[in-house]
């Protein structure tokens, strides 16, 4: 594949406007609709059952209503034969009784009882703990990476990388918010993995820019960046392609439980690649990066000039 010569940096405004719009839409959605938090963070009970035939959701809802579980949500999970029942936290009823009661309710007067696939119960304290842990994980990894990049590269690069990655996370969360998809622990893990991947990508480009800053003279910063991005283009696209291949396999064949997980990564890897090419370098540029920033400062001898 011959090295391309696309003017990424010159045309950065198109990309920035596009990304700006997407991010804006995501933020609006997150602020108004918010994220549909799973029971891992809110606490509550979740019961998944399987039937031999497609389940009659309305009949189930009716049964649960009459037994006093009015606020239970009943949905299909993956296929028409699998049903997911969700209950919010209830005062004073231990999960031990709750899930057994619900199961008894839906299995009443039924020829073939549903088979229990899984039950998850998260108490309020644990829900808060998990939410806090998740937030801290997000915070610490961001901080650690910020420090690392600032140490390996220069602070303008560091900020540029953070902006690019932040953009990916916001847009992916926005997708979840707009589609109303559930945000649970595994999704959070996927978001963290996504941060790692997106930064990985961005670093490869920055690495090349740094190398070229040192190697190429008498060329404008913009030009150097353009060259660097073009040269690493084939590698960036190739890597993303292979990762996307496995993610597609995971998305279609992995089953419903990690469906949202693979969706985050699919979406995120795609955008991670996009941001590494179109956002990361322009961001650093706009922060005023130039080859001078990478040069080792020459010692100023004026302070010893007066000494004999």
């Amino acid at each position, binding site marked *: 594949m011959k090295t391309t010569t696309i003017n990424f940096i010159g045309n950065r405004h198109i990309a920035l406007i596009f990304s700006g719009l997407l991010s804006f839409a995501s933020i609006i959605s997150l602020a108004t609709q918010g994220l549909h938090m799973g029971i891992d963070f809110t606490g509550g009970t979740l019961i998944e059952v399987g039937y031999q035939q497609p389940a009659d959701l309305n009949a189930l809802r009716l049964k649960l209503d009459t037994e006093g579980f009015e606020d239970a949500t009943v949905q299909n999970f993956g296929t028409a034969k699998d049903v997911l029942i969700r209950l919010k936290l209830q005062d004073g009823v231990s999960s031990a009784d709750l899930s057994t009661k619900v199961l008894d309710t839906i299995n009443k007067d039924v020829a073939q009882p549903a088979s229990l696939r*899984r039950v998850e119960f998260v108490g309020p304290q644990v829900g808060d703990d998990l939410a806090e842990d998740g937030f801290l994980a997000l915070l610490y990894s961001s901080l650690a990476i910020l420090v690392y990049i600032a140490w390996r590269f220069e602070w303008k690069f560091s900020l540029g990388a953070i902006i690019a990655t932040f953009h990916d996370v916001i847009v992916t969360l926005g997708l979840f918010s707009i589609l109303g998809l559930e945000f649970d622990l*595994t999704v959070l893990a996927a978001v963290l993995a996504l941060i790692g991947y997106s930064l990985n990508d961005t670093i490869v480009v920055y690495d090349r820019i740094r190398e070229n800053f040192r190697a190429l003279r008498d060329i404008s910063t913009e030009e150097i960046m353009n060259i660097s991005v073009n040269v690493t283009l084939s590698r960036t696209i190739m890597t993303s392609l292979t990762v996307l291949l496995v993610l597609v396999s995971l998305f279609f064949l992995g089953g419903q439980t990690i469906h949202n997980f693979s969706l985050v990564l699919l979406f995120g890897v795609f955008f991670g690649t996009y941001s590494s090419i179109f956002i990361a370098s322009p961001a650093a540029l706009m922060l005023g990066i130039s080859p001078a920033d990478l040069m080792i400062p020459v010692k100023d001898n004026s302070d010893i000039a007066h000494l004999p």
Partner: protein
Amino acid sequence: MQNHYSLWKNISIILVFLISIIYSLPNLYGDDPSVQVSHIVNKLTQAQASDIESTIKNTGTPLKTFQFKDGRVLARLTNTDDQMKIADLLRDKMGNNYTVALNLAPTTPSWLQAIGAQAMYLGLDLRGGVHFLLEVDIDAAVKQAEERYNDDLRLALREAKIHYQNVSKDNGFIKVILKDTNDKAELLALLGKDFRGLTVTEPEAAEQVWLKISEADSREIKKSAVAQNMTTLRNRVNELGVAEPVIQQQGVNRIMVQLPGVQDTSRAKEILGTTATLEYRLVDTEHDVQQAVSGHPPIGSRLYYEKNGNPILLDKRIIITGDQIVDSASSSDDDGRPSVSISLNGIGASKMGKLTQVSIGKPMAVVFIEYKNETRIVNGEKVRHKEKVEKVISVATIQGVFSKRFQTTGLDSPQEARNLSLLLRAGALAAPVDIVEERTVGPSLGQDNIDKGMMSFLVGFALVVFFMAVYYKVFGLIANAALAFNVVIVVAILSMLQATLTLPGIAGIILTVGMSVDANVLIFERIKEEINNGNTPQSSIFSGYDKAFATILDSHFTNLVVAVVLFAFGTGSVKGFAVTLIIGILSSMFTAITGTRMIINWIYGNKHVEKLSI
């Protein structure tokens, strides 16, 4: 010489490869659903084993193998339905003194087992089973300790003949109001000698002394409350008959319990979730029970109800609490009546000894206390609180003076004796325990997840291999070899560490497949570039690896940082994902840089090459 690895380097790489293959092998051997039968204390006899074997054979259930070793029976069956059926059958047959456990027995050949090779440890979402997080109410434990101090103090004061007006709990303190202020010095001396765990405050009122459990003592109580619960849980879990249970302390007051393979989750929850404790009290034979029933209980006694509903008056003082019972067994006494023999620890023994010296012929009751969560409507609002349910489960006459070991009679049947002794042996919990998190996965879903995980892995792998071979040709094939090598290493390390493999963990391995290609791509693209710049093939290879190295290090490091943070803050399945990610990243760095280099050096090293097939 460019592009050449020394002999020892080549050998060590190959060695790593071979070892990885060997330690991954156990994963190819499946597990047999099996049933394990053992006696709680003794070993089974050959006769019993043969009896069990014929029982199974009589049902017509296909039996894979039957093993009688170390006094235990292991019956391997062909599927989990049979396993459940046989387990239930044997449980009914063998009775309460035998443990019938469900097990997944590995079929790894013995030569592999000899070198310590095992299959990966599957998480609950792949194996099916129950996971509980229990929270110990350590504040209640401290309150219980206060009650005990209260009672012990009264006893001690009476023995020392220090007259008191009142000893009671008030506002977090135990307040002692003396009759005579001159006794204060004596009281303080007594406290300093026998009640070191209490800190003393002397208020303005000269005849009062206020006591509080010290910080250090309080900490000890909380710690041992959790430890006590853990021991009790272990015993209870053993009674459930689960092989390979996991019971771990999490943080200051939480306990995690994992029971893989458990299908009957409601029974598990009953046994674990019910919080219960025991107390021994003297029966009040002096006063009239009816007086208490009508609402005027005599001072010093409390009204209780027996199992059959009969009211009974018990002394307010607690003699023995459940945590002082060390052992119990059901048997019959000299007259053939069902009884339970009980052993106490040192403190319990001394208390019991003192009591029985003065109470021969008097009846003593065992109170069974359960804590249930109840919600009540108070002023229109839902208020949640714990309700204490107390029942007298046995009343027995004290036959003689005893301290450490004694028998309790007055039981209806051998069955009742067995149940009581089981309860006592499994231990009463020192402090109430609440289930705060539960995750149960049914066995069908577990197998489902494994199948889906395997399928997406194979398809993903195949796609990448195909793509790499087509695009990078010979170098692509080399990358594929490194990829396979990578997966084998990850599996081997997971097996050796016995780290838990979860469904997200499998996703992590799949992700590693995609990402490990990255390092190779970086190198190959660099080599291509060098060639395009007009360098010779040999030097292109050399500088390709050289220049790409720093980039690979940087990019993998950031991924590693994220994975480590995930590991630190994650729980359960998320932790499993972090583990495979970390191992995968490290391993891919190794195979991409060192592994592929070795192969390339073999093919192209030290030879005159015109063109690279890349």
